[in-house]
């Protein structure tokens, strides 16, 4: 709901609905109480949507759910007032709060797949709150559900409600959850990262659904997300949070164009990074050649005749949504999934399909950095052992030589060796752990590194630091990267060449500027046009364009 659309609700009631004053919430961990939300004020009027944005640990979900007078297990509200429609929720009895929840304030969770009860049909879960709060009969609720399903353009609106949650796809489930939140026509909706688990082409449908519904019913809403571009499409006002405190709050357009706080400015600047140096001219023999590879998990073929090359010093980004086969391609290159047909060549030499049959030297040449740095390092080994193992294993180093090299590597990844070498991974932050993974890969002195979604589990500012580091290392060491990602902003930042994958096939490949400029392949077009941009008008423009092409058919399916 943007400023220009607010006019459509003129005449509607826009009185004060929710007011939080000096909200403080603490959580119990390590046998102590820690303050996780500190003195936050929120004011929300009817018909308005407030975006809460912040990185992990900012307390945004905790604040959002506190609007229902609810604290997650292990948390408690220990200060401030939450006044919803004249009722102070911090003073209200459990029974009073229960009568508001679901009826006046409704919640849309991040993972609909987990938040729907597997034992009941969607429509029964829809009707439950209606009958429980005495708003209508089961039949009324059924009819209303079908009507809502139709309004949000769910396929088969009369029948889909009679399915069980596991029988419905993720995007549809998320929309069904939005419909369920509306079952009692609440005054306030809490959206808690509702599209984070979805693919980008699915995300836009769900976003459209949620925005339309908020407009149609003149609800107020709190939209919680870490994605600036998404919140820019949805919210009237944006509040930036960090470490449980308010950084600043402003009207959406003003916040986007003229942020005041340094922290907000740095958040806004994140997507501006671009690779600094041009790729060297390709040599005759590519460093990695994936030659017409078909691969399968059991009976299911997951890669179909995939064929591409990566040259020394180049970054090749492989993009696609979940199930596109981009990670499978990496597994074939590493030898974890031997191909059925086709082969992998390194510097012109054919490598055995199975990593068990590869020599130490061959294994050393292909290094990998993972998405979850948490699980990619052994939590029971010190940094010294994690980074040092390839040094002794591949290069036979020990004693002073190994120690010297260890320190060199730590300097390369910009972590102080004196401070970090003897720590355990649990004593490092997420970004630092990812740096350790980079150091471990570098320790093997490879020419080629596979980066599998290496930034997607990190906060944006930290992610940018990792991208810059990878870029600098590439320049210094002439490394080739295969960069697997679903995030087109990352592709734009670091890629020399781009490969677009869909359902195990390469849809399009070429230099980055070719892929990113028209004419596009149909799927690339859909993918590119689905990535939210910081422009608050972006979604309206995309919808207008797609409608012009008669094209919601492609996305609406």
């Amino acid at each position: 709901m943007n400023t220009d659309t607010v006019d459509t609700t003129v005449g509607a009631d826009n009185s004060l609905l929710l007011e939080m004053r000096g909200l403080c919430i603490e959580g119990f961990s390590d046998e102590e109480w820690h303050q996780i939300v500190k003195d936050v004020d929120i004011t929300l009027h009817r018909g308005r949507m407030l975006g809460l944005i912040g990185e992990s640990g900012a307390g945004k979900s905790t604040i959002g759910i506190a609007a229902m007078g609810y604290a997650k297990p292990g948390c408690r509200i220990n200060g401030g007032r939450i006044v919803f429609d004249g009722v102070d929720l911090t003073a209200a009895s459990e029974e009073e709060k229960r009568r508001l929840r679901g009826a006046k304030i409704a919640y849309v969770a991040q993972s609909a797949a987990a938040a729907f009860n597997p034992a009941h049909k969607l429509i029964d879960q829809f009707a439950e709150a209606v009958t429980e709060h005495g708003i209508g009969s089961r039949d009324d609720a059924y009819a209303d559900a079908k009507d809502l399903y139709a309004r949000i353009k769910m396929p088969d609106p009369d029948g889909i409600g009679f399915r069980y949650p596991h029988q419905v796809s993720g995007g549809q489930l998320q929309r069904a959850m939005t419909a369920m939140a509306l079952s009692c026509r609440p005054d306030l909706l809490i959206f808690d990262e509702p599209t984070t688990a979805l693919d980008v082409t699915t995300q836009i449908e769900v976003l459209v659904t949620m925005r339309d519904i908020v407009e149609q019913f003149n609800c107020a809403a709190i939209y919680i997300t870490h994605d600036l571009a998404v919140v820019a499409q949805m919210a009237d006002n944006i509040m930036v949070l960090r470490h449980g405190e308010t950084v600043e709050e402003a009207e959406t357009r003003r916040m986007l164009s003229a942020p005041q706080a340094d922290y907000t400015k740095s958040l806004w600047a994140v997507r501006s990074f671009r690779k600094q140096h041009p790729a060297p001219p390709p040599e005759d023999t590519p460093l990695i050649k994936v030659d017409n590879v078909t691969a399968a998990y059991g009976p299911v073929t997951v890669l179909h005749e995939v064929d591409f090359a990566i040259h020394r010093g180049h970054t090749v980004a492989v993009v696609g949504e979940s199930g596109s086969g981009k990670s499978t391609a990496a597994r074939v290159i590493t030898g974890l999934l031997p191909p059925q047909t086709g082969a992998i060549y390194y510097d012109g030499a054919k490598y055995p399909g199975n990593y068990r049959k590869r020599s130490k030297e061959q294994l050393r040449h292909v290094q990998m950095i993972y998405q979850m740095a948490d699980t990619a390092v052994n939590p029971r080994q010190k940094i010294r052992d994690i980074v040092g193992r390839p040094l002794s294993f591949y290069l036979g180093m020990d004693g002073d030589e190994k120690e010297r090299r260890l320190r060199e590597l730590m300097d390369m990844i910009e972590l102080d060796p004196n401070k970090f070498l003897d720590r355990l991974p649990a004593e490092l932050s997420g970004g630092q752990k990812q740096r350790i993974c980079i150091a471990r890969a570098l320790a093997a002195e490879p020419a080629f590194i596979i980066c599998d979604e290496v930034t997607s589990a990190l906060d944006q500012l930290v992610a940018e630091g990792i991208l810059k580091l990878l870029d600098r290392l590439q320049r210094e060491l002439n490394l080739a990267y295969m960069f697997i990602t679903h995030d087109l902003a990352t592709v734009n930042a670091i890629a020399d060449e781009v490969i677009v994958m869909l359902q195990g096939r390469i849809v399009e490949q070429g230099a980055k500027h070719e892929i990113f400029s028209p004419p596009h392949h149909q799927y690339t077009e859909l993918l590119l046009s689905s990535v939210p941009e910081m422009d608050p008008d972006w979604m309206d423009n995309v919808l207008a364009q797609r409608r012009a092409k008669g094209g919601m058919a492609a996305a609406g399916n």
Partner: protein
Amino acid sequence: MKDIFIMLAQRLSLGVVTLFVVSLIIFLGVSLLPGDAAQAMLGQSATPDTVAALRARMGLDQPGYIRYFTWLGGILQGDFGVSIANDREISDLLGWRFANTLFLALLAAVVSVPLALTLGILAALYRNSVYDRAVNVITLSSISTPEFFVAYILILVFAVQLGWFPSLANVGPDTLFFERVYACVLPAATLTLVVVAHMMRMTRAAIINLLASPYIEMAALKGIPRRHIIVRHALPNAWAPIINVIVINLAYLIVGVVVVEVVFVYPGLGQLLVDSVQRRDLPVVQACSLVFAATYVLLNLSADILSILTNPRLLHPK
């Protein structure tokens, strides 16, 4: 629904295969006897003639696989062979004793299952309360205690000091139902005490696990009253874990019965097994082991099948 039939068929056939392998192990175990089975059973003092006679009677002069299939074929027709100790048909010995054992286990189950489920669910709902903590300490102590300790304490208090119940569970084939129940009060109480602790700890863990699901939180955020959350959202998903808990403990009851039967000199299968082991009456030991193992396998099999039948994801396939 096709998937579910396939899964059920798989489970059932797996159960049959398991039973078959179990029978093989029980049979082959005897062939593992160091030296000669007949000699081992009769001891060193036996004359060569008696050993030879026993060998012939046990069919040891035939090849192993023939003996196995003869044995298995007999069992399938209800013929377990003949006891070496007293020459009686094993099936005659087995029949009413097995019924006695089942009666005792059933009596204990009838009391302990509802009791344990109620106590366990309450402990889960009032987690970390004084009740929960007390129950934790009591059940931990109870599962740490040998059955015979519980049994003798009960005897000491209720039979010797108070004189309310007999210390020996003497039942015959003609004992009337209520006399039978009366005789079984102490043995059944022993079993109940031990099994309730196990069962309620497992129930508590299963329910706590379930209550941590996001859909339970979602139901709370929809303003559903707590009792309806439990009945409507937790319970339908709790059947599988609860059934599992019950069956594991029923299986445990069947085994736990052995010690209790010995303490109370109750004429059940466990008593027979222990006596036969002491007499080295191998055919009877084999028969008893097979019956116990088969009951155990069937119970576990029914747990598998019931948890398939109560799983909504399997009941309503895509």
